[in-house]
């Protein structure tokens, strides 16, 4: 944590958008990747990041200067994605741009990763979330725990359950490789 960071937080709290941009801007890309990994829809992921940024902007008053920005903001993005997924109960949600795999061959599926996306989509959201954070955003277990607000042990068990469910997809690739 640097003095510059603390100064940026203070300025952002005072309503300085440029300071907020310097704090959150570098996290927009990983936030989009998290959103796409969870929602599998580009527009929904973009919406989630924008909504999360507004939430973060409004929550700045609660932010302690020493708080790490990445787990703080990605936790808000993850929350936003969970809310979006929960929203399926009540309203329309764009999920996939096309019914993947319906008109393409198996080899094409492998190439495009559609099989893996489909398998990810069928996972419970809690397992999907930790797999994306761990293996797509390459975050350490402790940071995944911080973002998802669960113990590291729970992160591990969710990862294990998710990987167990998806094992056939990784096995196929191993065989091809």
């Amino acid at each position, binding site marked *: 944590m640097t003095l510059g960071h603390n100064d940026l937080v203070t300025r952002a709290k005072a309503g300085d*958008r440029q300071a907020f941009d310097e704090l959150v*801007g570098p996290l927009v890309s990983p936030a989009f990747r998290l959103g796409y990994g969870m929602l599998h829809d580009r527009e929904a992921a973009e919406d989630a990041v924008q909504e999360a940024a507004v939430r973060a902007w*409004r929550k700045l008053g609660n932010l302690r200067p020493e708080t790490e920005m990445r787990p703080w903001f990605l936790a808000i993005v993850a929350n936003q994605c969970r809310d979006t997924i929960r929203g399926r109960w009540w*309203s329309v949600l764009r999920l996939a741009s096309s*019914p993947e795999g319906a008109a393409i061959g198996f080899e094409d599926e492998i190439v495009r990763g559609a099989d893996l996306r489909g398998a990810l989509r069928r996972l419970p959201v809690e397992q999907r979330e930790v797999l994306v954070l761990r293996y797509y955003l390459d975050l350490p277990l*402790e940071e995944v725990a911080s973002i998802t607000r669960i113990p*590291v042990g729970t992160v591990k068990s969710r990862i294990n359950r998710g990987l167990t469910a998806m094992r056939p997809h*990784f096995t196929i690739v191993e065989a091809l*490789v």
Partner: protein
Amino acid sequence: MDELIRSRMHEALDVEQPHGDLRARVISSLPADVRHAHGFRGPGREWTLGGVAVILAVAVVAGLLYTRPPRATIPSGSGLHATARGGFAMVTPSIGWAIGPAAHVFRTTDGGLRWRDVTPADYSSNSIDTYFLDGNHAWLTQYVQSSSSTVVFGTNNGGASWHRSLPISTADLHRTYGTVLFFIDPTHGWLLVPGLVGGSQLADPSTSTQFEFLYRTTDGGAHWQQVSHTTSRPGACVWGDVVFSSLTTGWIVNFCPSGSGPALFVSHDGGVTWNVQSLPVPATSLDSSPVFFDSQHGILVVAGESSMTLLATSDGGRTWSVRPLPGTVQTGLNFVDEAHGWVIGGSSDQLSNGATVSGVVVPLFRTDDGGNNWVAVRTDLLLVSTYGRVQALDFVDPRNGFAIAFTAVPIYGSFAYQGALLKTTDGGVTWAVVGQLP
């Protein structure tokens, strides 16, 4: 293997990038009228003694104004414990609760036709846990990051108004994770608060210790007293739902991924001390706590990869006996009391492949003797219909029950997902759509 998984994840998910300059759009979309004083710290302001005094005064007044609800017995015949923690719980044929968009709390009084947002005004979804006891009493937890504490919102009038507990904070506890709520009646409840003590803000195994703090309330959630705590190597163990079958006897599942596996613990002194409960089957896949219908009768499910084993007790949990289940694969087990229950049971092919074919009825079974005998229900509920695939069952008494189905239809070149709520009034034989979830 980790590298292979990473490589495959990137291959599968790198196919989409945001259109245009998302960063610029994000910054330009920030509202101008932001109120950073969302908590108790204004822009560029630090904590002040006056601010703290106001908080304490508000909390104390809220506590004084809290009306102690009348003592009630454990609700019988409701099956509440089976569904009370989920995002959806019908508690009578007409009254139900659901978690909707943005984690708001909704309530229906007409069997799911219309839903009203009853979220507390000062509630923001953050590490939400809910407990819906009956049509009037419900509780929510909220993690307050600014004070590293947990507060509990409670209502005793169906969400018309909410009481907020004093912040529940333990010295040096700098981080809390998902909380677990349980109420046995409108007055008595327990709250499990997992958290980390010591170390940095992140869950650093080398510098922090994971604790599970158990709190108890005797005034409907206004005040909480710590009962006990556990400690373990950080990340070594996960504690499941806490359940009480009386004011003194409670249950909790402990799962240690790298240890000896899951175990069921029981307490006979209100949660102060806990001991391992022996079971008649290996607890290798024990991942849920028991469900009790009164102080003596309860069930416990030991779930495998696909099939499950049903255990039942009629002596308060001292002994458990195995009950048969129909089919080789089961889902949707749902008991409303110690006698009446339902389960969807069939072959793997029937439930997985059949679930993709329209016109296949749900292989629904019913028991009226606590699971000793199961009879097929001649139901008209389809695994997949125009309303979508049946995802959950929620019976409220031996005749009235609800089912939730998803439907997916193309819209604007994408998919649209909508949830439909179906209802039966004859124990699962005939079903009709009553509305949607909020």
